[in-house]
């Protein structure tokens, strides 16, 4: 968008800010490519929060205790809140929530592929909290120091809530493991389904992730996919042991020398299939979101009409 007129001084300032690990703020000059990358990443993150309401949201109505129902309802509500902050961050760059929602519904923007896997039992509510929110936190904690100010500040708030959700999920699984044999089997079955998709959440291996380098140079991203994946595995293995579940990876073993776990690779073909739209729930998730958005159109229109009418009545 910016004209061809070079602005070397502004560019130098931008570079210096990023190098100092200071924040870029909405009114600061920034390269177009940086702006686009931030918008893309924040939008994808916002969409993930909103689409991510669906798999867990489907279980609110069936929560097996009133306490768990309240916890789950509040959690899914928090996800809506996260979506709200993140869309606000894109709005600081002049991109509206409405526009982004339309892009999402049209299939032109992505969200985290993990939400294309179905939530098939109440144990999945716990597993999503433990593994999916756990992986999200590994991805997101470094983003609290991301170079774009509004995004970084949104992440601080989000990460705090996500850790809370992660602990809640883990606690649900812990409780279920102290319950009946059927409950323990439900937990194991759920972990079996979510382990590999959770590892995929860090994105493809570094050698297949072309955007990582530029994003790191700009301070948008601060660690590579493989670094974060390793961190997640090392963090999760002892939790799985404490819980009493088996992680479904025969290659998972502590490597004394590296001081880290060796582990197998997810099925990257499956990963790309899901990214390309063939996951178990891609169509369902978008259809659900589209339906809600379309059915709400008359309400949003009424709100706009009402606000406009009031603006006219009350002179500025």
């Amino acid at each position, binding site marked *: 968008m910016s004209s061809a007129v070079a602005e070397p001084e502004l560019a130098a300032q931008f570079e210096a800010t990023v190098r100092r690990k200071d924040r870029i703020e909405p009114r600061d000059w920034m390269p177009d490519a940086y702006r686009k990358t931030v918008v893309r990443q924040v939008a994808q993150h916002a969409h993930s929060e909103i689409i991510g309401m669906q798999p867990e949201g489907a279980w609110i109505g069936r929560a097996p*205790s009133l306490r768990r129902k309240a916890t789950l309802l509040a959690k899914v*509500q928090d996800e809506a809140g996260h979506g709200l902050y993140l869309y606000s961050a894109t709005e600081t760059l002049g991109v509206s929530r409405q526009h982004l929602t339309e892009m999402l519904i049209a299939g032109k923007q992505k969200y985290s592929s993990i939400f294309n896997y179905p939530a098939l039992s*109440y144990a999945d509510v716990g597993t999503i909290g433990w593994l999916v929110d756990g992986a999200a936190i590994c991805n997101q904690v470094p983003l609290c120091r991301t170079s774009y100010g509004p995004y970084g500040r949104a992440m601080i708030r989000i990460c705090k809530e996500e850790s809370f959700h992660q602990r809640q999920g883990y606690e649900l699984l812990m409780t279920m493991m102290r319950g009946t044999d059927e409950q323990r089997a439900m937990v194991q079955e759920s972990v079996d389904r979510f382990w590999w998709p959770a590892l995929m959440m860090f994105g493809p291996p570094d050698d297949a992730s072309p955007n990582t380098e530029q994003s790191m140079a700009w301070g948008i991203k601060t660690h590579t996919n493989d670094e974060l994946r390793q961190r997640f595995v090392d963090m999760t293995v002892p939790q799985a042991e404490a819980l009493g579940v088996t992680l479904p990876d025969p290659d998972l073993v502590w490597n004394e020398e590296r001081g880290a776990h060796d582990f197998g690779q997810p099925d990257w073909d499956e990963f790309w299939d899901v990214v390309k739209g063939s996951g178990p729930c891609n169509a369902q998730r978008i259809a659900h979101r589209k339906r*809600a958005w379309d059915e709400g159109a008359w309400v949003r229109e009424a709100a706009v009409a009402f606000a406009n009418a009031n603006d006219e009545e009350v002179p500025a």
Partner: protein
Amino acid sequence: AQELAAYCLQLGDDALILSQRLSEWCSRAPDLEEDIALANIALDLLGQARLLLARAAAADPSLVPALPEGSPVPPEDALAFFRSDREFRNVCLVELPNGDFAETICRVLVFSTYRLALFQRLTAHPDAVLRAVAVKGLKELAYHRDFAGRWFLTLARGTEESRRRLEAALAQVWAYRHELGDDQDAEVVLEQVLATSGVAAPGVRPVSTVGGHTEHLSRLLAEMQVVARAHPMGLW
């Protein structure tokens, strides 16, 4: 104590069932702000339901359904998840499917206006627990009523379509208003909201509620209770 228990059960069931209906909006509301607000209302009502069901169980333990020996299910959950539809004491109004956003707004408006007026009186109830529930609920219900009232006005004054939907929705809800009892205070408030919005009170006949419930409750409970009932010895 039996009378108190029955009363708490009735108030608790109203809150529980409406909460269940409102939570169906989750991820489906017209925009994120309403998604969050409806979840908030559902959460408040769920909180009221838990306190009231627990009070009912304490006041008359014979109300609590029997579970297998050693079941860890607490009384509030036994009441919520192990009663049959015939044992629920809620009004039909809260069982009805959500319908569109206008129907939800009208239901929340009418329900919370009546409940607020009732809770104001309950702050003088002889039972200390019920009194505490009422005191805590006042602020919540005022928020629910105001949220619904603002949207009522917005839809009334918004577009032709929103006006049409609002009036149709109000007529549906109005036909169940008699279930909430005669309440001058609530009626005055509703009249004001309608007058401010320029909407006439619908001239509808009250729907008969012989039978006690609608066909919708048993379906609602089929969903709500399915996991809990599959695991009567479960720990959650």
